[in-house]
């Protein structure tokens, strides 16, 4: 393995990046998006969420949005997070890595979709 080869992301980092892919969100919206995107298989609590957000901010994967919500519509204390270019590239690299694995799994006919296709 070369040192520059990207490493697989942790599930929490991957799901937070994925949740922010379609726009900026605050903490609870991220938690909801993570649950919906993973079809309820992966949930993230506030403790894990903010610990991970802290590290992702330090790694420049996400940034805090400078815009504050309208005080009549939302709580001013909320902070919104968005993907950085580095975060988007990292997410795309991880998705590409998974895609390559899935393609390989289909070739090897160990992917459920490929086996069901084979039986049809």
């Amino acid at each position, binding site marked *: 393995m070369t040192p520059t080869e990207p490493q697989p992301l942790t599930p929490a980092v991957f799901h937070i990046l994925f949740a922010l892919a379609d726009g900026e969100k605050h903490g*609870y919206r991220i938690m*909801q998006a993570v649950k919906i995107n993973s079809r309820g298989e992966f949930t993230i*609590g506030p*403790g894990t969420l*903010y*610990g991970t957000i*802290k590290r992702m901010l330090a790694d420049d994967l996400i940034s805090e949005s400078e815009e504050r919500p309208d005080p009549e519509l939302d*709580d001013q204390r*909320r902070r919104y997070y968005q993907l950085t270019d580095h975060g988007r590239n990292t997410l795309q690299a991880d998705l590409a890595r998974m895609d390559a694995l899935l393609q390989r799994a289909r070739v090897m006919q160990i992917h459920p979709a490929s086996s069901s296709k084979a039986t049809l």
Partner: protein
Amino acid sequence: MSAIISPTRRSVLPVYRTLVTWYPTPFRQRFEQEMLLAFQDWLNAEPTPRSKAQQLKLASSLIADMLPSIIHEHLSEWRSTMKVSSIIQKVALAALAAWAVIWAWFIGKWFLLLPLADPNKWLLGEDYSHTANSIFGAALFIIPFLALLAFVIPVLKIQTLTENGDGVLMLRLQKMGKAQALVAWVCLGATVILWGMVFTARMGWW
């Protein structure tokens, strides 16, 4: 617009607030308000726990989420504020303190003839082995030198200069604090005295 929380769930919030206070201060200053808001939203969206089993499930999921995160943040904070060299220096100081006490004990017992217990027997046991005695004896001579290294190595700057095609290795000491310099000088003095005693005794000079 702040999140409105139902009275039945309000009792959980103080518990959560208490758990949040267990985070390191810098983390709390940055994320406390957001965490409380996110938790209130999450609590409102979750079905109200009615039975004891459901309440237990909620409490366990809360603890499972928070405790690893609290431990992780404290470790992370500790790593970022405490340099390895500083930890090693603290260990070296503790070893030096123990070393000084044992030497004072030896001097008190064998030179000042004070009514003290035999330090060897007291520290190593009544029937201590030759190996244990050797290690203990060696430690009494080597501890100041190791402590000296613990204080000198962090301020040692290694430079390589190239002059006329020849590489020259240069070791330079950077400035260290007065207290650290004092400890380093004491360690150097103790090392020279102890090793000088061993050397001269081996040479049969006394």
